[in-house]
């Protein structure tokens, strides 16, 4: 059994999908490196790297675009990912807006966005 299954529609074994998976992890690593090396309160090259935070999620949304037409549960996962990427952006804004130890309203809005995303994931599994 391969990673994508031995049978099933062609979208499972698509070369494009494998490339997209690699790109997903490249952007994820870029964000994590930027997040690790960026210094809080100082704008630098590494701070700019953190702007790619939501890109891996957009790649996954693109990957799910074709199969979402084939199964309703996948459509709900896609909506969950959209809210997840919105949460990413709001938490990123919170990271820049937060001055003291307490998070800003953007953190609460980001949490709310993730919460809605999780509800769609729950619905996709039931």
């Amino acid at each position, binding site marked *: 059994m391969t990673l994508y299954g031995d049978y099933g529609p062609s979208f499972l074994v698509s070369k494009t999908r494998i490339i997209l998976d690699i790109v997903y992890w490249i952007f994820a690593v870029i964000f994590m490196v930027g997040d*690790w090396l960026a210094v809080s309160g100082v704008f630098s090259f590494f701070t700019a790297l953190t702007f790619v935070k939501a890109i891996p999620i957009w790649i996954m949304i693109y990957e799910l675009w074709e199969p979402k037409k084939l199964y309703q549960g996948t459509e709900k996962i896609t909506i969950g990912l959209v809210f997840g990427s919105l949460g990413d952006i709001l938490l990123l804004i919170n990271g820049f807006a937060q001055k003291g130890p307490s998070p800003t309203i953007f953190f609460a809005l980001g949490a709310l966005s993730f919460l809605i995303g*999780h509800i769609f994931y729950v619905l996709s599994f039931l």
Partner: protein
Amino acid sequence: MSLKILYMLVWLILVGFCFFSLSQVVTKIEPGSIMVYVVPVYGTILLMLVMASLFYYFTSHHIDNLLFHATVLAVVGSLSFLASDTLLAFYTFHPDWKTKIVSLLLMLTYYIAQFLIGKSGIKTAAYFNRPNKGIV
């Protein structure tokens, strides 16, 4: 029968873990902040996500090899989400946990979670559209 016991056991462990984590985090939140209400509600939905993925596994993993893979990916993905969001709560509200390594781990588990849940959806779609659908 043994699967039902396992399901109950996992449920108890997860509820215990969530109660413990929430008790540790909520006490650190500034009194009067909206997050005092948001965090417990979020924790409940997160627990529901893990339980829903376990329900998906326990009810569907035996049907087909593709569904087995889809359900395992969903369970591991949702557990990664539980790990990621728990770390995020501790990182944000608990001063002792505000370190670079926690930040790295929470993002790593977050990307793993989104990746695996997305892949689970693709596998499920493949199952419902496989060429030999309906042939046992």
